[in-house]
């Protein structure tokens, strides 16, 4: 975000500064067509800069249709709105400003993410930030007008540098306070995000609004004194900065959302861990009970041995020794094998899901023939989400079968860690159907699980999912590709 933020400031900001200057020139020369053409070109430049930066920052590959649509809306808004209003409608330029700034923010937000919920949030906070900026701008403008009016009334025609400077300082201070308290107010309202992130948004807003204030002071100088070249330059730079910080504020929200999502997942994992721990506890009680039973049984046997009753021993042994009863291989001892998975989060999700399956009466076989410990921590959350979905699907698929079997295997092979989940099913779906969007065997409105899995897989080059279907078994293989060793370049078989 730091590097990307700089890019945002530099790229979009400067283009935007350019554009606004051109817009001001337009305001003074209404109806000059060739100026509009130049303006239009600059707008296109800005839109392009936008596109590049947004793609970089949000790391979202947009579909072509949406990109073209967004760009078109942007260009049309930026070129046509001022054109029409200046030429035909003679609306106040402030109102135009507000309208197209808001449209701008909405389109911008559409760039930021694929998820509709995040887009909505971005729009909300983007518009909020913009409104605050504009408010600050108009307040300052009004104040400046007012002061200069007083100055003119008092016939103090000479703008003594000290007088203007002190006025400006007071105004900037007032605006700084306003934006600071707006920021604080916002901080108090944004409950759903954690403190650091709130501060980030507020600070972006604060800096942005302060810059707006300074900018307006400079602008007033421009309007009221002389159009001096250096002042124009300062104005443009300030514009760029202001715009950059506005975008910063919006992006900090995209970030926020991602982080909040990660937090939620961590919570979920913690819950899984708890289930797992309680399962272990149950297990140890079971073991204690078993040992207790054992001793009782041996004591019983001792009675027969003492009186040398061999037939009695035999009868007693086969009748009561729990080793020879199948049921004692209880569910919990099976989860024991999972101890080979050393990554807590993954272990907990697998154990809790499989435990659930066992409780439903599914036959569950767990195989972890060797310790699995070197999973990259960056992948853990994603792997958990995928495994969770896959096991859920397996459980659901076997729910209505008479003999439900789920098998789980985790192993390492040729630089890969495998998680294999297989389940039996009555009528397996066709392979080429599964990958279709929203495919499900569960009825309308379902089937988002595999979609989510697909999105996660798309993001991670190192995760690979292979689906295999035999006549009555459905097998999902999740592979985690570990970094390759040098000199290990030959093509490897992924077992089909």
């Amino acid at each position, binding site marked *: 975000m730091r590097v990307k933020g700089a890019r945002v400031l530099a790229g979009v900001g400067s283009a935007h500064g350019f554009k606004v200057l051109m817009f001001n020139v337009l305001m003074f020369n209404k109806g000059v067509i060739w100026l509009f053409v130049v303006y239009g070109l600059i707008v296109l430049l800005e839109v392009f800069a936008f596109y590049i930066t947004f793609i970089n920052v949000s790391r979202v590959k947009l579909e*072509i249709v949406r990109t073209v649509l967004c760009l078109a809306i942007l260009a049309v808004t930026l070129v046509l709105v001022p054109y029409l209003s200046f030429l035909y409608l003679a609306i106040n330029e402030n109102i135009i400003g507000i309208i197209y700034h808001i449209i701008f923010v909405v389109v911008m937000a559409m760039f930021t993410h694929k998820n509709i919920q995040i887009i909505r949030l971005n729009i909300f906070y983007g518009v909020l930030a913009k409104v605050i900026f504009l408010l600050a701008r108009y307040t300052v403008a009004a104040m400046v007008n007012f002061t200069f009016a007083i100055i003119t009334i008092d016939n103090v025609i000479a703008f003594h540098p000290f007088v203007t400077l002190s006025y400006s300082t007071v105004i900037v201070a007032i605006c700084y306070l306003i934006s600071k308290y707006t920021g604080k107010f916002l901080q108090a309202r944004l409950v759903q995000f954690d403190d650091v992130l709130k501060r980030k948004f507020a600070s972006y807003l604060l800096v942005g609004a302060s810059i707006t204030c300074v900018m307006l002071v400079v602008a007033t100088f421009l309007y009221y004194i002389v159009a001096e070249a250096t002042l124009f330059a300062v104005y443009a730079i300030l514009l760029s900065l202001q715009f950059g910080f506005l975008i910063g504020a919006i992006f900090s929200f995209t970030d926020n959302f991602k982080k909040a999502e990660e937090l939620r997942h961590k919570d979920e994992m913690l819950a899984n861990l708890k289930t797992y721990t309680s399962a272990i506890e149950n297990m140890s009680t079971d073991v204690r009970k078993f040992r207790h039973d054992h001793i009782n049984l041996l004591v019983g046997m001792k009675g027969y041995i003492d009186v040398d009753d061999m037939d009695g021993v035999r009868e007693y042994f086969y009748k009561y020794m729990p080793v020879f009863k199948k049921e004692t291989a209880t569910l919990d001892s*099976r989860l024991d094998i999972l101890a080979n998975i050393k990554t807590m989060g993954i272990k907990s999700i697998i154990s809790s899901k499989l435990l659930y399956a066992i409780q439903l009466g599914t036959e569950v*076989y767990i*195989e972890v*023939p060797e310790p699995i410990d070197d999973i990259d921590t960056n992948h853990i959350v994603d792997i958990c989400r995928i495994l969770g979905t896959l096991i859920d699907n397996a459980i659901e698929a076997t729910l209505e079968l008479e003999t439900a079997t789920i*098998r*789980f*295997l985790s*192993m390492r*092979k040729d630089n890969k860690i*495998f998680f*294999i989940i*297989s389940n039996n099913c009555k009528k397996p779906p*066709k*392979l*080429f159907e599964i*990958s279709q*969007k929203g495919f499900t065997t569960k009825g309308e409105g379902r089937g988002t699980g595999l979609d989510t899995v697909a999105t996660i897989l*798309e993001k991670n*080059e*190192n995760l*690979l999912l*292979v*689906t*295999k*279907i*035999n006549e009555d078994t459905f097998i999902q*293989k999740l592979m985690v*590709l570990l970094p*390759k060793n040098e000199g290990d*370049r030959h*093509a*490897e*078989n*992924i*077992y*089909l």
Partner: protein
Amino acid sequence: MLKIFICEDNTEHLHNIQKHIDNYILIEDLDMEIAYVGTSPQQLLQYFDDCERKSEKVTGLYFLDIDLNCDIDGISLADKIRQHDPRGFIVFVTADAKSHLLTFEYKIEAMDYIVKGEDNFNVRIRECVKNAHSRYNSKIINALQTNFVFELSKGHTISIDTANILYFETSQDKPHNLNIYTKETKHQFRGSLKVIAKKLDKNFFRCHRSYIVNIKKITMFDSIVHQITLENGAVLDVSDKYIKELKNLMRA
């Protein structure tokens, strides 16, 4: 020659298996020999060391018990065998097969497993020997199989026997990507049909703007609605301009 190794901690079972295999090889006059029979995994692994010293290559058929009453179990033994003999045929002989099925299949890539105490135990052993023998011989003949190799992500490549590929398709959700289908799997990779068409042999035919199909895998060809059905049940369209050519190919 295919060598047979048997490792089992129960001597009674051990000799039972050995006797059956001996008889079977004798009756069928198979080109096989029993190289090791015993209870100790270490001795079995020793055999490989000896061979390596003589720089001989071993391809074997292994009958392994899971519970060897020893510091390593059958699965880790099999894992070690795989390092010496990647193409060997491993058969597990065990009382409890059910809890290791996936490990057999994916970790060890075992050829088969036999459950102790089943009625058809002897029959299964004979089957395994026969299977391994025929596979071993066909493997020598089919050493020339061609593989289609493609890259998934940086440094990770997959190779698939071209005889298993059903068809290629341009991906609808990701531009410049192709989906490759076999009967049981599907992969996505970056590429274009035009380029891979040149790499593939004459069994593959471009039947549509977005498909290349393996002709050997077509189960049904409907020249009226211009559609083909493949072994996995997928139905693909055929373009008008390719239909004639495909018809000729199918006749041939």
